[in-house]
């Protein structure tokens, strides 16, 4: 294993290659995003989700066929955690108060089973539109506020660099969801915002160090200076990512089915966020050619 305290790893030497890699990943994400789209949950598409439990093992196909007979639009049924529990997702939603009870009665009749509806979620078209809107707004507003905060605290090069790195993370996360086909719902928006916060956190730590070193040293090559900064913060970057991942892996494996997509998004986000802080955000400072004369600023910065 390489030593994370070795201060001479040339992260920036191959930054063009990493940019190429990221560029390819982004292109793949876009292609998948526009051809497969996202597997939108009912939060954004409208419809009904029912988590149902049987007394014994059962088959998803039977449930699906029985539900199709009820003319509920496009019906999807899949096992949820074990072979007694299933998730049925269908297009139809209704404002009528007897809608769900009727679905249940008819399903129990056609399968001749007693079924426990453990969870029911129904989202009407108006609400799904509103949730979509507020989801997009949430991500955009958070990005803008962070951009603004970083711009206040740092030079514009840092602000732009961190936002580009964040966009990179968001796009790759959307891409991953589109490729894997995990359901994309409200909690994934929450996860994306957390990723944005986390990745920003990571980037800020590295940028802070670059700024500190810029103030100390206005002679050495910018590439070397950034490289040293990344090296100096590397132990922290890795250790924090590992502890966060440890906690997230616990949720992924032991937190139950409902949290699986959510914790997957976070795990993926932490990995991508860590990668982007080192290989995308840091080299951007080199590309934007941040100013070298920091003498004035020293006095003003706390």
């Amino acid at each position, binding site marked *: 294993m390489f030593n994370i305290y070795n201060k001479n790893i040339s992260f920036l030497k191959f930054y063009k290659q990493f940019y190429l890699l990221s560029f390819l990943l982004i292109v793949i994400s876009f292609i998948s995003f526009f051809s497969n789209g996202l597997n939108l949950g009912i939060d954004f598409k409208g419809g009904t989700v029912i*988590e149902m439990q049987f007394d014994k093992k059962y088959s998803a196909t039977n449930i699906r066929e029985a539900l199709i007979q009820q003319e509920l639009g496009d019906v999807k049924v899949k096992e949820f955690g074990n072979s007694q529990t299933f998730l049925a997702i269908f297009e139809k939603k209704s*404002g*009528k*108060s*007897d809608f*769900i009870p009727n679905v249940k009665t008819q399903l129990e009749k056609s399968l001749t089973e007693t079924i*426990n*509806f*453990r*969870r*029911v*979620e*129904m*989202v*009407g078209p*108006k*609400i799904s539109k509103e*949730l979509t809107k*507020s989801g997009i*707004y*949430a991500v955009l*507003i*958070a990005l803008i*506020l*962070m951009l603004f*905060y970083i711009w206040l605290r740092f030079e514009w090069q840092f602000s732009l660099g961190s936002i580009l790195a964040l966009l990179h993370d968001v796009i790759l996360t959307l891409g991953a969801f589109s490729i894997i086909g995990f359901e994309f719902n*409200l*909690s994934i*928006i*929450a996860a994306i*915002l*957390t990723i*944005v*916060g*986390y990745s*920003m*956190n990571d980037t*800020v*730590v590295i940028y*802070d*160090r670059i700024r500190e070193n810029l103030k100390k040293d206005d002679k050495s090559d910018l590439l070397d200076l950034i490289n040293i900064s990344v090296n*100096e913060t590397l*132990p*922290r970057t890795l250790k*924090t990512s590992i*502890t*966060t991942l*440890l*906690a*997230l892996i*616990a*949720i992924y494996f*032991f*937190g*139950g089915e*409902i*949290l699986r997509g*959510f*914790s997957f998004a*976070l795990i993926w986000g932490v990995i991508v966020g860590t990668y982007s802080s080192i290989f995308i955000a840091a080299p951007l400072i080199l590309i934007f050619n941040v100013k070298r004369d920091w003498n004035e600023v020293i006095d003003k910065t706390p």
Partner: protein
Amino acid sequence: MLHFSRLKIFFISLTILIGLFFFIPNFLNTPSKIFPEKKVVLGLDLQGGSYLLLEVDSKPLFKEKIDTKAFDIRKKIRSERINYTNFKINNSQTISFQINLENKNEIEKLLNNKDINSRVDETNKELQFVINDNIVNINFSAAYLQRIKKNAMEQSLEIIRSRIDELGTREPTIIAQGEERILIELPGIKNPKRIKEIIGTTAKLSFKFLANNDANSNSFDILDSKSRLEKFNVEKTLVLSGEHLTDAQPGFDNINNSSVVNFKLDNFGAKKFAYATKNNIGRRLAIVIDNQVVSAPTIRDAITAGSGQISGGFSVEEANNLAIVLRSGALPAPMSIIEERTVGPDLGQESIDKGIMSLIIGFVLVIIYILINYRILGIFANISLLVNLILLLGTLTLIEATLTLPGIAGIILTVGMAVDANVLIYERIKEELLIEKNIMIAFDNGYKRVLTTLLDANITTLIAAIVLYFIGSGPVKGFAVTLAVGIITSLFTTFILGRLFVASYVKSKKGGVIKI
């Protein structure tokens, strides 16, 4: 940075004690004299229950109002003996008709009359009209429509409240959301079927005679029976509406062996009912609820007692429900469920168990990792982490935040991220120790230099959490709250409490060798 005055230590201890004070009750099964009773509020996804979002559909109400208004206007024009032609209502919005040009002034005067066109407020009137040549177009003003909507909303809220209260639900939350929505949260409800039936019924009751066989087809509506198997020709003329009901109680009819609803009428209703029944013996009187004929008994005698019975082959529950909705009165406008999220109590408990399980596992993994990496300093970090958990849960209890499943995930995530502050600090100290030989100064510098980074890094995550709080809903909001509170408590436990530990440790070593 390594010096702590007595006062500071006192306040740090006090903060932790307060945290403990609110944290402990969450694990007490019986109320204790020392601690407050408050426990952290569990979201519907954890304790089980139903979340319903209803929308008031004002369109039928607007239609009803414009129909009545059209009727009044027509009556008025007739009584003033003004000629008009082509009287109609377009799109349930605009009343239009044609007049002779010489009557223009009279019509204008009539339409400004306060009996027809009352004031809504200082600047707005009920109607707005345009007379173009000989065509009159009349609309409700926006202000009036707004008022109808507002009144309907207030009434609906009240009626829904009284209906749900009658069911004896545990701590329901019923609040208005925006101009046309009502949010209902019903914790602990396993099956919201009955509640949904009760709030989903408009319960517009009316008594109308069935039309005679020779009646003009304009004078009656064809309505479905409750079972939808039969159709009835029901006269348009209203005998009595449900407003005159003073009471409704479920009962049992021994002769037909079925449940019924007994009702009582107010004075006016009783008189009108007596008069109508006396003059129509032998005819069938339809009892219409929400445009369905529930039953249509034949009138055998004049009904003068001011009370009656609705029978319609009800089950006991149906009769109970009907009695409740009739007692509470009709909703001014139909409501539909536009969002529902129901979680059964067994799933809720399972989520809690799994959440706690993953919290413990995540926590143990992190603690071990930290111990391996930082040894003695790791112990301090881990104690801070534990205190962080106590403060986080204590704060959530104190501010009565709702803990949801994503919220639990948020706590676990905070455990992972709280370590970040420790890692940042310890790594920085390691670096400082390489340059600075004096251990006290090295530690001091470590804390000093890391502070801005720490704040910058955490404020960005805090921004995300705050945005999420204001824009997210339900479970996501719960996540945002734990994340935000977690960031603040973790800053306290790592940068202040952790520093106190480290400072005492460093001082105890008196400048000796410290390995991290």
